[in-house]
């Protein structure tokens, strides 16, 4: 049943949002974002299977490329901030306040 896959995707996306808003560890927040990207991928593939068209698969590959780029950049930023502040708390990283 396609609907079950979509329901699972909604549940995983909500858990990802919950992780982003309730945790203060940088790594957990970052991995929750990865979880949300995966939930979106599952929805893409379910719709792709529903319509039997291959466009969803191509979009999933694009999302994977974006996730890889995001992982490289975000981890570089985390290393820099850890070097400067010595902490992993997202509240410490509020550097963009005017």
């Amino acid at each position: 049943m396609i609907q079950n896959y979509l329901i699972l995707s909604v549940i995983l996306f909500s858990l990802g949002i919950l992780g982003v808003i309730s945790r203060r560890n940088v790594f957990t927040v970052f991995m929750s974002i990865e979880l949300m990207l995966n939930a979106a991928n599952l929805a893409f593939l379910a719709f792709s299977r529903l319509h039997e068209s291959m466009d969803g698969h191509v979009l999933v590959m694009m999302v994977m490329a974006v996730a890889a780029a995001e992982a490289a950049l975000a981890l570089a930023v985390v290393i820099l901030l850890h070097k400067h502040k010595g902490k992993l708390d997202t509240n410490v990283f509020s550097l963009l306040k005017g």
Partner: protein
Amino acid sequence: MFAEGLFIGFSVLSVLGALGLVLFRHPMNGAMSLIVTMISLAGLYALLSAKLIFALQLIVYAGAIMSLIIFIIMFLNIQESDLPEEKGRLTYLIGGSVVIIPITLFLIKVVKSIPNAEATIVGNGFGGVKEVGLVLYQDWLLPFEIVSILLLVALIGAVVLAGKRRVIK
């Protein structure tokens, strides 16, 4: 019948992994449970007869990205004392759930209004390398090139950010 059982097993495993990611305190435990989620999602992709994406999920997500994250977690050598003290974590979790659960139920209701179809495995090369490659290079050529530029920019950015040796006066 066999596919239904596989679907139930993989979906329960992926939701448990996601719950572990949200609830575990140490990021290493969270990363391990996220790997469980990724691998069971790869199984679900195989059930949706996306053969290429199944392999890519295992190689790129569960392999490359997660090992990068775990490498960085171990590189920073995070002790129990380095973790932020999350005293109000349960409060935030309950408050977040109060906001998120109605939205989730609404979205599930929306999803249930979609015409249903059986998710049987499709044969004749659906989701294989050749078919996806044809779609990718015929209909999605420009986005594919833009993704290559994005990866180049991310590479340069990571080198500039992490490889800085300048001493700031």
